């Protein structure tokens, strides 16, 4: 039997591994909602203790070593020092998350509105305007758009570049220590360093900044990708330059301790279409993607991981040409994303990291038997010849029955022919 890291490396090199590697919790796009992590800990009879919310925006729970072993996972993550709300995960403390006791950073500072909505503050600064809101009835934060008035002829791309700067020594030390811990686990390592997500709509409103300037409204940003392309190019040029400089610094600090790097989470797909044409993708994004990926390939052994939800089959050739090695989350329910067709057209050039089960329908609302059937089918299609890391299609969402998550894991283990637990 192979060790987990070797299993992942074989998979990423399109060699057939001894079994399909599994990732849950390796990144903020392959994660598990904290409530589900707590339910899984209970299911597996692990020590009862509050789960750490290591990514507060999507309320993702940290999968610790004991749960990773119980779930039979092969991948672990390296995460940035600071969260989406601009504070570091330090000095954990208990927090009552609507009845579930969880652990949050001491800088995770919130207030509750009379409506029951929870507001969260950038850098944990209660004197700043809040940058996230979790409505009553939801289980995640959404960014609060803080858009200064736009005066067209006064727009300055520098205003949209405040978040792109050389990382601090403290961040480098954090990456070094996290990479060492991850490597010591024996798992394959997926790292998120940040800074190269060109136009990721989750990051545009800059929930981590106290006073964001430039174009920060979501609709305004989308329109800018069509009507202000020169402005967007200027942002991407600066971001690319700083991003590569940071990757070089990080690589000098950690070397090849990580196996794959989650470089960009910009979503290009909707359920039925794309957010732009292939022509716009090639004009506006491709040069920067290629520059970053070329640098990674020329200087490291890391594999380049691209996340995009939705219907993106038409973009996959361009992603491959730009140097991406891995596509996630492989939203098979979207138009044109048929598993068999994807595998036959791109399977020898792209690793599918995801696509294991639908998190919009089957996993939250199906029966365990339906989950099993879908998982076995996806493993059959995507697993042939390597190039498949099992993961659900994006994070496991709040409200997903733990029986279905367990049915999903059991099905992968069944396909893999292994017994992880009784």
């Amino acid at each position: 039997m192979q060790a987990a890291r070797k299993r992942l490396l074989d998979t990423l090199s399109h060699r057939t591994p001894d079994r399909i590697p599994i990732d849950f919790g390796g990144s903020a796009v392959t994660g598990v909602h904290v409530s589900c992590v707590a339910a899984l800990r209970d299911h597996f009879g692990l020590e009862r203790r509050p789960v750490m919310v290591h990514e507060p925006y999507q309320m993702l729970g940290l999968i610790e070593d004991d749960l990773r072993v119980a779930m039979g996972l092969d991948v672990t993550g390296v995460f940035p020092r600071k969260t989406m709300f601009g504070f570091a995960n330090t000095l954990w403390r208990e927090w009552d998350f609507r009845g579930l006791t969880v652990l949050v950073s001491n800088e995770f500072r919130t207030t509750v509105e009379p409506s029951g909505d929870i507001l969260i503050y950038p850098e944990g600064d209660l004197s700043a305007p809040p940058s996230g809101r979790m409505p009553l009835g939801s289980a995640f934060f959404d960014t609060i758009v803080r858009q200064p008035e736009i005066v067209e002829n006064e727009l300055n791309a520098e205003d949209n570049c405040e978040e792109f700067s050389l990382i601090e020594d403290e961040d480098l030390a954090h990456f070094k220590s996290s990479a060492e811990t991850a490597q010591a686990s024996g798992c394959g390592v997926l790292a998120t360093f940040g800074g190269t997500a060109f136009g990721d709509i989750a990051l545009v409103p800059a929930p981590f900044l106290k006073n964001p300037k430039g174009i920060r409204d979501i609709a305004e940003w989308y329109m800018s990708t069509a009507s202000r392309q020169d402005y967007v190019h200027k942002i991407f040029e600066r971001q690319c330059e700083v991003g590569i400089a940071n990757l070089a610094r990080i690589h000098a600090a950690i070397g090849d301790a990580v196996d794959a790097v989650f470089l960009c989470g910009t979503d290009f797909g909707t359920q039925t279409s794309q957010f732009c044409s292939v022509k716009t993708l090639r004009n506006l994004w491709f040069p920067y993607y290629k520059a970053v990926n070329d640098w990674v390939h020329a200087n490291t052994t890391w594999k380049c991981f691209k996340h995009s939800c939705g219907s993106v089959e038409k973009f996959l050739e361009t992603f491959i040409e730009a140097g991406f090695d891995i596509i996630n989350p492989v939203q098979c329910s979207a138009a044109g994303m048929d598993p068999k067709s994807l595998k036959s057209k791109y399977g020898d050039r792209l690793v599918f990291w995801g696509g294991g089960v639908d998190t919009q329908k089957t996993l939250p609302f199906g029966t365990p038997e339906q989950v099993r059937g879908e998982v076995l089918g996806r493993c059959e299609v995507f697993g042939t010849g390597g190039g498949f890391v099992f993961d659900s299609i994006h994070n496991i969402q709040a409200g997903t029955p733990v029986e279905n998550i367990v049915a999903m894991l059991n099905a992968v283990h069944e396909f893999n022919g292994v017994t992880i637990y009784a």
Partner: protein
Amino acid sequence: MPDLQKLYDAVLEGDQKTAVAVTQEALAAGCAPMELITKYMVPAMDEVGRRFECEEYFVPELLLSARAMKGSLVLLRPLLAESGVQPAGRVAIGTVKGDLHDIGKNLVASLLEGGGFEVIDLGADVAPEKFISAVKERGANIVALSALLTVTMPAMRTTIDALKQAGVRDQVKVMVGGAPVTPQFATEIGADGYSDNASAAVGLARSFVRPE
């Protein structure tokens, strides 16, 4: 008299500045507001919808055209109200309780407006009571519900049930949409229709108000 084709072109090309300027010139020259809408703006938005469906246009272009159209409508709407012109229908639209995602909802609202509907945009995170009020007090005859999250999809059912309990369900057609929503789910919760994109949502709304 200004060249009104420029209004059509400005909406189609998402040029708000020109759309507003041509509208102002046309009104100053005595053009009827309804004519500007029905002969130039609605056809332009129909063409936007067509281009979106055949993937010549994408979300950014849709947003730009909707903004251009809205710029003109701000000038025209008060005049229409004065003249007593009736809209194609009156739609109360919102993202359901617990859900703050409004891009899809905003696109549907804009295209409905461009399609000649009066739109009562209730925003995001909308409680069922607000939809009921829009029906009772503002005469909405279509309720359009949006959700992006699996955890907020059940609020669509709650909203429809609340419309029933308030005794207004029979007065309205309910249409639903959003990434995780399916035609099956729409049927299960008792909606009258489902659309998987903003352009098709206009066709669906038109089918609700078309005389039988």
